[in-house]
């Protein structure tokens, strides 16, 4: 057994992964330079003329682009806040349920949407939110509506935010539930002896013990502030709601691929990538600093 043959084996093992990483991450990184070109597919990356920062400056001058940037940040940050609140509330309440089997059954029910694709969920939502769908039938009984949930620009972002809550709150609650089950039960018993009420036990024992997890999730989500959820919005939006529902990723898809403005689409993408890298840097720094978290 020699150290050198060991090393050779390690290199052989890692080679396929490295090749794929190169081919599908670093080669596209090279293609990103067309953001600084007037790219012409016939001329290729080598032959297309350079235009410096023109595409980036043009992007900043587009009213669309600014609106899209705002929509993205708004939808993404509201999703984080609302999903986090829903997940924490759910976890705290579930922790109060004393019947273990009921607890498990409830978990089984709320995790399910997490595993279904946005194509499926959007198909379901489009049916339910339609003018003659189940939700409007229900509102009709109450004398409200019909409401065009997917066709009204002022409602659309909230439909997106709340449907994301539906898909993810249960699954997000897992980390909080784990923190809650790790609490030493004697803490609650001692508090009871001291005459603490249910609410006081929650306020002074449960909440403080999940606070670090909340901080961690909050820090890590900073890196996602430009990801408002392409799959979800792409499958639920329509031109009527572009004003409030169009996000960077859907915008890049339409101008870059559908309209074939490769350079402009890439410029928007490069801008997003750079900002996202900075944000991820900040988020890992914050996660490490405030929650001593490291990914490896």
């Amino acid at each position, binding site marked *: 057994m020699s150290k050198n043959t060991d090393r050779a084996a390690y290199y052989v093992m890692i080679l396929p992964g490295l090749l794929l990483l190169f081919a599908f*991450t670093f080669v596209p990184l090279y293609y990103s330079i067309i953001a600084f070109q007037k790219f012409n597919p016939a001329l290729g990356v080598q032959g297309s003329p350079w235009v410096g920062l023109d595409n980036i400056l043009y992007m900043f001058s587009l009213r669309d682009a600014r609106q899209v940037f705002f929509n993205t940040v708004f939808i993404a940050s509201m999703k984080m806040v609302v999903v986090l609140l829903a997940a924490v509330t759910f976890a705290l309440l579930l922790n*109060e349920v004393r019947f273990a089997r009921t607890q498990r059954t409830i978990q089984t029910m709320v995790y399910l949407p997490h595993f279904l694709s946005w*194509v499926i969920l959007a198909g*379901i939502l489009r049916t339910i939110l339609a003018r003659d*769908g*189940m939700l409007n039938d229900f509102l009709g009984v109450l004398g409200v509506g019909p409401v065009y949930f997917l066709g009204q620009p002022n409602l659309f972002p909230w439909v997106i935010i709340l449907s994301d809550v539906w898909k993810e709150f249960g699954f997000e609650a897992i980390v909080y539930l784990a923190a809650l089950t790790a609490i030493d039960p004697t803490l609650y018993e001692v508090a009871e002896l001291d005459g603490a009420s249910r609410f006081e036990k929650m306020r002074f024992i449960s909440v403080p013990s999940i606070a670090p997890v909340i901080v961690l999730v909050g820090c890590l989500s900073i890196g996602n502030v430009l990801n408002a959820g392409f799959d979800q919005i792409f*499958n639920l939006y329509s031109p009527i709601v572009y004003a409030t529902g169009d996000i960077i990723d859907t915008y890049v898809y339409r101008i870059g691929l559908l309209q074939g403005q490769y350079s402009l689409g890439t410029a928007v993408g490069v801008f997003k990538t750079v900002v996202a890298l900075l944000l991820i840097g900040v988020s890992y720094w914050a996660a490490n600093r405030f929650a001593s978290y490291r990914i490896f």
Partner: protein
Amino acid sequence: MFSARSTSDRIVDYLITLLLIFVGVSTLLPLVNTLAISLSTKTAVSGGMVGLWPVGFNLDAYGYILRDGSFWRAFGISVLRVVIGASLNVGLSILTAFPLSRTDRAFRGRNLFMWLFVFGMILNVGLVPWYLTISNYNLIDNFWALVLPGAIPIWSVIILMNFFRNIPKELDEAARIDGANPWQLLWSIYLPTSLPALATITLFAIVGHWNSFFDGLILMNDPANYPLQTYIQQLVIADRPALHGGQAQMMAQLSNNTLNAAKLFVAMIPILLIYPLLQRYFVRGIMLGAVKE
């Protein structure tokens, strides 16, 4: 604990439990509605009469799907991408995670490679350059475009690497003394001890492949090459039912909604079948991902 709990306390217990059961059931109502629509008659559905129970129960929509060649072709492509794609994902994760779990001394360059992979993970290359790259490889309308670009799932590599690093070094050393080389070490010590982590990343890969639609949409020009999610996206979401010949007649008899609901439901079935496993191992995966030191 036998301390007497007050009656009011117990009432609150029941109220919270009831509230959460309500929340849980509400989460599933949209899915029940879809199932009910798929089992109802066209007239009942277009009359807006179907809530949570089928009206005029029938299996016509499912019968139609059974005979629908294009649906099953898309289904087959999805199954194929799950089988091939997930095998590649898991195989490559193992091969990459193992050398990365070594120290930089045992495997020179380990730290550099690690940073390359992490950089690759957080770097989100834009859609356009990504598309141009793949079309430059002539992979458009090629099945491999659905599996190769995402073949190395870096998050899974990290999960597995962290798992490998927590395996006691004594096992490693014992095998070394018996003269095991890295391949034997990986095969007979590391893999058998890592089954839970392997189950987790396998399920990540399966669900990821089954659920993705966007790569199929932009990388396949010919609808005959669509995986199931893309096929459904085009039919149900993009709302462009391909009506021609006998199909048009069939469609007239079935409400579009009924058929769409049935398709959505059939596409859900594989996920529902493996749901018990998903619940068990995804939860573990979340906790594995959150390694705290």
